[in-house]
């Protein structure tokens, strides 16, 4: 049974107008439908009759000569041979041939199984070798990575050590700078806190005598520098006194002052007792060896 759609496709097939998927699908339908196949043949006959409808043109005579000359050397395809009628074979021969066929089949199957087993075995061996190669390759890769990481680690450690050394050096320098700055600040502070006093002469006959006293209250020590003070008598000594600030504060002995023949003298002195704040400095002429409390005349007094 052929429907209209199939008939339409058959007409197109007769003109070789089917292409691609449409052609493939129709070829499949034809293979399954002998009636459809016959319809296509029928319509192709009708289509090819259109060759007679082309405007008639006589081929040149030389064309026939050319065609006839060409076929001389051409080979022809041979038709398929018809199937010959089978001969009658005796039964024992059939049995023998059947047995031989069974043996041949069994041998072929066994042989194929053997070949398959060998092939499979070879495949397994090859796969094993391949796995070994892959394992070695992986191991090499890991080793390479390990070496690379070790190298990176060494570089990092070196960088780290350098950084630590630099940090330490910086810290040491910072400490040194800090100590120096602290000392500088301390000195500046000490200097700020030092008391500097000039002592004027109270001697009528040595009015040029003068002295300068510098007192460091933090260290509780000071320096006295004297100029143009006449030497003391043989039984007398000049003695320095620190007079604390505060009403009625008693002078504190600060040691003897030795005078050179040129009238100069220098003494580093400490008070016998701690002094918080000094109001004045004084130098008096006392008995040889000094006195615990001022008894003689004051020759120099800070202003």
């Amino acid at each position, binding site marked *: 049974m052929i429907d209209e759609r199939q*008939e*339409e496709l058959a*007409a*197109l097939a*007769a*003109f*070789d*107008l089917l*292409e691609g998927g449409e052609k493939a699908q129709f070829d499949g339908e034809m293979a399954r439908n002998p009636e459809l196949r016959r319809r296509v*043949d*029928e*319509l*192709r*006959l*009708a*289509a*090819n*009759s*259109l*060759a*007679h*409808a*082309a*405007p*008639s*043109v*006589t*081929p*040149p005579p030389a*064309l*026939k000569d*050319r*065609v*006839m000359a*060409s*076929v001389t050397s*051409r*080979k*022809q*395809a*041979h*038709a398929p041979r018809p199937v010959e009628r089978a001969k009658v074979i005796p039964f024992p021969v059939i049995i023998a041939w059947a047995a031989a066929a069974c043996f041949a089949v069994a041998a072929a199957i066994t042989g194929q199984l053997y070949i398959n087993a060998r092939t499979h075995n070879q495949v397994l061996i090859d796969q094993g070798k391949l796995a070994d190669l892959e394992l070695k390759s992986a191991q090499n890769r890991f080793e390479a990575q390990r070496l690379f990481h070790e190298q990176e680690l060494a570089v990092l450690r070196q960088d780290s050590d350098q950084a630590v050394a630099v940090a330490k050096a910086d810290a040491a320098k910072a400490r040194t700078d800090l100590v120096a700055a602290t000392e500088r600040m301390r000195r500046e502070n000490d200097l700020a806190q030092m008391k500097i006093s000039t002592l004027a002469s109270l001697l009528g006959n040595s009015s040029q005598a003068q002295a300068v006293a510098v007192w460091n209250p933090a260290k509780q020590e000071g320096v006295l520098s004297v100029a143009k003070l006449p030497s003391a008598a043989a039984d007398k000594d000049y003695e320095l006194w620190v007079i604390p600030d505060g009403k009625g504060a008693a002078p504190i002995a600060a040691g003897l002052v030795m005078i050179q023949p040129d009238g100069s003298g220098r003494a580093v002195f400490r008070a016998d007792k701690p002094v918080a704040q000094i109001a004045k400095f004084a130098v008096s002429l006392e008995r040889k060896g000094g006195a615990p409390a001022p008894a003689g005349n004051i020759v120099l007094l800070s202003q």
Partner: protein
Amino acid sequence: MSYAVSSFPGTLGWVVPKRGPKFRRFAMSLPELSPSPDDRAGIDASILQRMAGGDKAAFAELYDRFSRPLFSTAVHILSDASEAQDIVHDVFLALWEKAALFEPGRGSAFSWAVTLTRNRSIDRLRTRRRRTDLLEKSAPEDLGYQASTADGAGDQAVAGDEAVVVRQAVANLPAEQKRAVELAFFSGLTQQEIAERLKEPLGTIKARIRRGLLRLRDSIPHRL
């Protein structure tokens, strides 16, 4: 008097007088009878059978029977006589080489030869660079003949009985079916290209080709 009885299948009733003046006079009074379509196909098939055996005389006979319509078809498709000669040359070589492979049950020898000619011509056409221009020259919408059968006697003699019958059948087709069928056979265009050429939907063109070809099948004697 002796008679030669044709051995061609389907022609056992055809008696050809070989000798005898009386019979010759009798035969001369009979109207000129052309072989029927089936007879023509049978004759062609037997020629191919002889060709398969290496008979070059049979080959020459087939050439004389087929060359005109095959050459005309090739010229009409290609619009180039020189290329058409190449095509016809190749087709006849193929017929010689494959004569033994021809299956009469699948169709006529002429139909087979036309298929070879048309396929080669269309392949050649499609490989040309100036395809569009050539298609306009080679595929006119009208082959140029009218519905009337009053062709000149000379043209009929040149064209042959088969051509007259086929041209009549084609001319009797409705115009749109005629155009579709002619383009389908001669132009080398695809279904879509034919539809675009005629400015019609693809489904309409398919239907026209189907109806036109069915009409031709019914109008033209079997195995022309």
